[in-house]
């Protein structure tokens, strides 16, 4: 920036405009500034004088008035936390409870000798060393005038015992609160999630004023996803207190608005049946109503007791859960990403028909392995002798790998990626809870981006039998299966079907949403693929027939799958008993029923169990049996609900 003064000195005869710009009377400016500063200073003094005068009035002249008010100041404004919304299964069975629970609290400022008080308290009430440690930690962080909780979940006897001795304990109180309880313990634990004590980070995320007085917040699952609805609106009360801050009576109350209840799509009975059908194995079961996307059951085994987390899990309990090799905290249906194995074959068959690279009746000879030109590698079939002449029906029913190597090769990875993505693979389904993962539907672009390598034709073959890079969550498999059952209409899976107002009891059903529709040029293709899946279960040569097909009272369409956990070298043979259990194949099974008008679609994965037909299919059958035979007969006839 040019200094105008210097310009003026250098060029005395400069044009009028510049000279006019340049006239700055420095002395004048300094004089004006001095004046203005004096005026400003005077105004500042005047204003602060007004503040002082006001302070003088309040603190000196009206002191007596205010000291009286202060001494009589017994009215305190307190937040009243709203009761948390409850969750019910689709038939109204409660999945959560708000139990009254008694909390022993100490207000440090009102206690003379804290150590002695603690000792005496421990003689009448069961207080663990861990409780005392936690109490002392909390003590450091809070005001001495605020009550600090010492022990939770006091029994009625302890409350009574304390009441008798209460006069000996100044500053110790029992506060009744509502505490979250999960009556079914482990059942549906991963779906419901749990609440826990609010921490600093969570407090920063929510509206602080609405959480005044709230101690717990949803940490996981539906408890977290629907936190806003479940929490409700804080209320306030004017309380009369004595000089020590102890409540005398409530003067005025603006009641809190209770949180909304959730009506889940889950059927508690089905959920329990599915969990027991897993029979101690690790794995996942997802059952969906294909018509609505309602998730009827979503099981992750092993499970855990969410009640442990509500008031802070002990270090020992947490370590046991964390270090368990079966990972009970892992939410398998949503976070578990597995190779789908042969369960992907019906989708591949549909893709073959859609792109017209084959037709259902077309036969080919399937030997013991498949080979590409210019590629010495032998892509082996699971059946050492090969399947011989196969068409699509037989290929699905017997899970012929060679047929699908050939089909995948003819389709190419681009078309496979495009077609399968319409069934929801490779992206989140958007289900209404936390922890969902995307799975992986590989494509040329993906491989270039992630591995910086081109796509090799051999990899297409492996994708054709659901191995290689491909990964899917059990929920995605269930959704894809439901989409087949629905003949291309993909419904948005959902865990909550309605929101209930606890005050009026009125329910607001959430809308059923269709997210995608796969249109085939000939609707007959659906029938052909579904018929081939039916043969998996009902034909004598079907891979599931000998395990579940006999004595079925309805028609079921399904597909077995066996997902490799690690890959064998070309000439190695798979011998289950010689392998470490953790390296054994996962068993998968997807199915829907009844074929004529599907009401349930199921995906089952049993980790490290071996063959899908033998290990996963029976679980699916128990689940579907319960739903179609018992539930329909008992439930629908009684309640008249769909």
């Amino acid at each position: 920036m040019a200094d105008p003064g210097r310009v003026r000195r250098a060029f005395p005869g400069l044009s009028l405009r510049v000279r006019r710009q340049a006239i700055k009377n420095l002395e004048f400016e300094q004089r004006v500034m001095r004046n203005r500063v004096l005026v400003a200073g005077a105004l500042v003094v005047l204003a602060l004088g007004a503040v002082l005068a006001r302070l003088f009035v309040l603190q000196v002249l009206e002191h007596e008035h205010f000291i009286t008010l202060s001494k009589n100041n017994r009215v305190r404004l307190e937040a009243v936390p709203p009761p948390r919304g409850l969750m019910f299964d689709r038939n109204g069975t409660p999945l959560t409870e708000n139990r009254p629970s008694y909390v022993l609290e100490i207000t440090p400022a009102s206690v003379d000798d804290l150590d002695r008080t603690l000792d005496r308290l421990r003689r009448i009430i069961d207080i663990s060393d861990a409780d005392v440690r936690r109490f002392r930690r909390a003590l450091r962080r809070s005001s001495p005038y605020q009550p600090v909780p010492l022990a939770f979940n006091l029994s009625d006897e302890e409350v009574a015992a304390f009441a008798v001795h209460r006069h000996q304990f100044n500053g110790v109180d029992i506060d009744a609160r509502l505490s979250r309880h999960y009556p079914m313990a482990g059942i549906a634990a991963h779906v419901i999630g749990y609440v826990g004590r609010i921490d600093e980070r969570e407090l920063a995320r929510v509206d602080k004023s609405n959480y005044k007085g709230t101690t717990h917040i949803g940490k996981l699952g539906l408890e977290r996803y629907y936190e806003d609805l479940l929490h409700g609106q804080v209320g306030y009360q004017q309380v009369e207190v004595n000089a020590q801050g102890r409540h005398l009576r409530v003067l005025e109350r603006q009641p809190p608005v209770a949180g909304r209840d959730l009506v889940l799509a889950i059927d508690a009975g089905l959920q329990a049946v599915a969990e027991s059908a897993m029979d101690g194995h690790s794995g996942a079961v997802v059952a969906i109503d294909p018509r609505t996307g309602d998730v009827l059951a979503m099981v992750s085994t092993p499970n855990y007791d969410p009640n442990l987390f509500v008031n802070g899990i002990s270090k020992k309990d947490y370590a046991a859960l964390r270090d368990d090799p079966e990972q009970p905290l892992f939410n398998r249906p949503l976070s578990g990403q597995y190779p789908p194995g042969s369960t992907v074959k019906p989708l591949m068959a549909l893709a073959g028909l859609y792109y017209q690279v084959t037709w259902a009746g077309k036969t080919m000879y399937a030997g013991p392995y498949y080979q590409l030109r210019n590629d010495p590698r032998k892509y082996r079939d699971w059946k050492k002798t090969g399947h011989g002449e196969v068409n699509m029906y037989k290929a699905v029913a017997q899970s012929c790998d060679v047929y699908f190597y050939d089909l995948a090769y003819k389709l190419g990875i681009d078309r496979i990626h495009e077609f399968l993505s319409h069934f929801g693979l490779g992206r989140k389904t958007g289900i209404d809870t936390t922890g969902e993962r995307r799975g992986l539907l590989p494509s040329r672009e993906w491989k270039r981006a992630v591995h910086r390598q081109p796509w090799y034709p051999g990899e297409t073959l492996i994708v054709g039998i659901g191995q290689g890079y491909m990964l899917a969550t059990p929920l995605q498999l269930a959704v894809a299966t439901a989409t087949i059952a629905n003949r291309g209409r993909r419904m948005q899976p959902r865990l909550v079907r309605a929101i209930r107002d606890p005050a009026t009891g009125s329910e607001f059903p959430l809308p059923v949403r269709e997210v995608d529709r796969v249109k085939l040029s000939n609707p007959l293709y659906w029938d052909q693929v579904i018929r081939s899946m039916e043969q998996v279960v009902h034909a004598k040569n079907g891979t599931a027939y000998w395990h579940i097909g006999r004595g079925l009272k309805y028609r079921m369409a399904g597909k077995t799958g066996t997902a490799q956990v690690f890959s064998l070298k070309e000439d190695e043979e798979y011998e289950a008993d010689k392998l470490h259990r953790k390296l054994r194949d996962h068993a998968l099974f997807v199915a829907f029923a009844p074929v004529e008008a599907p009401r349930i679609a199921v995906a089952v994965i049993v980790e490290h169990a071996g063959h899908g037909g033998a290990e996963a299919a029976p679980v699916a059958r128990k689940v579907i049996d319960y739903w179609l035979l018992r539930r329909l007969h008992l439930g629908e006839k009684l309640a008249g609900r769909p």
Partner: protein
Amino acid sequence: MKGETGYDLYYLFRDLTRFLHIDVVLLLLLLTLAGAGLVILYSAGGENGQLMTNQLIRLGVALATMLVFAQISPEVLKRWSPWLYGLGVLLLIAVLVAGEMGKGAQRWLDLGVVRFQPSEMMKLVVPMMVSWYFADRPLPPSWRDLPVAGALALVPMLLIARQPDLGTALLVGSAGLFAIFFAGISWRILAGLGVAAVAAAPVLWHFMHDYQRQRVLTFLDPERDPLGAGYHIIQSKIAIGSGGWYGKGWLNGTQSQLDFLPERSTDFIFAVFGEEFGFVGAVLLLLLYLAIIFRGLWIAMHAQDTYGRLLGGSLSLTFFVYLFVNTGMVIGLLPVVGVPLPLVSYGGTSLVTLMAAFGMLMSIQSHRRLLAK
């Protein structure tokens, strides 16, 4: 020998402060105030160690910011002014358009790593810009300059008021107007503007948010909403009034310690001070503030160029507005506006901005000798 060592130390200290461009008077006053602030915060925050640690860290960051700004010569500040101003206005618009919703008001801009409050930076940038505008023009400002300078102050102010953040808008707008005031706007125009402002009050009322109207109404009659907004004022008046001449003593204010007084470690911390240290304590605290304001004005008055004069004067008076609006609110002289007690209230954002302003004042004071006469 002893004397000589003292002498050496004196020179060492003088050279060091000169080298760091520190104004010792201002620094000592600020540190005293911050110290008093920590003492009262310890009581107001319920003797919470975590709270104290947080505030100490923020104070450290703020002091470092002050030091950094003290190193930047007014020349550089002046050169930056228009660019910073343009950037600031763009950011304010960005906040309005894409700002994140928080507490029903949009103030923050999420830059991924940090959340940034552009309105806060405007407290410094607006007076810088207005000072820049007048710096090379003949003063007193001509009729043509006034609308431009006024717009420079009012545009960001209105953008901030839209957010809505009445407290910050007030501080930003007044900072710009102070610079115009020091530029030598004629008294007649000033009086005319005053009359216009009074006339505009009903219009302003029309554009106010419901909660802002509530605050004004509550200010006029606290008893009309004793459970809601009026509760603050009633309780803070009781706290201050019950303090008397000498106060109830540190950590002994029943109003604050028994939870009657809301927001006692942030906006209403002056009430805690008044309750625990009484009238005498409050007078001393206000004198400390007065000394800081006067030191700021003195620096501005002795600045070498127009830019430094206007900026320094404006920053000093803005500090005063902080003080006046906050104390006025706490003692029931002014409506409840979210302005913290400067350098005392718990919270980081305003602390850093204020210290940056004092860094600029130190820069104006310390760089003057380096300029050729």
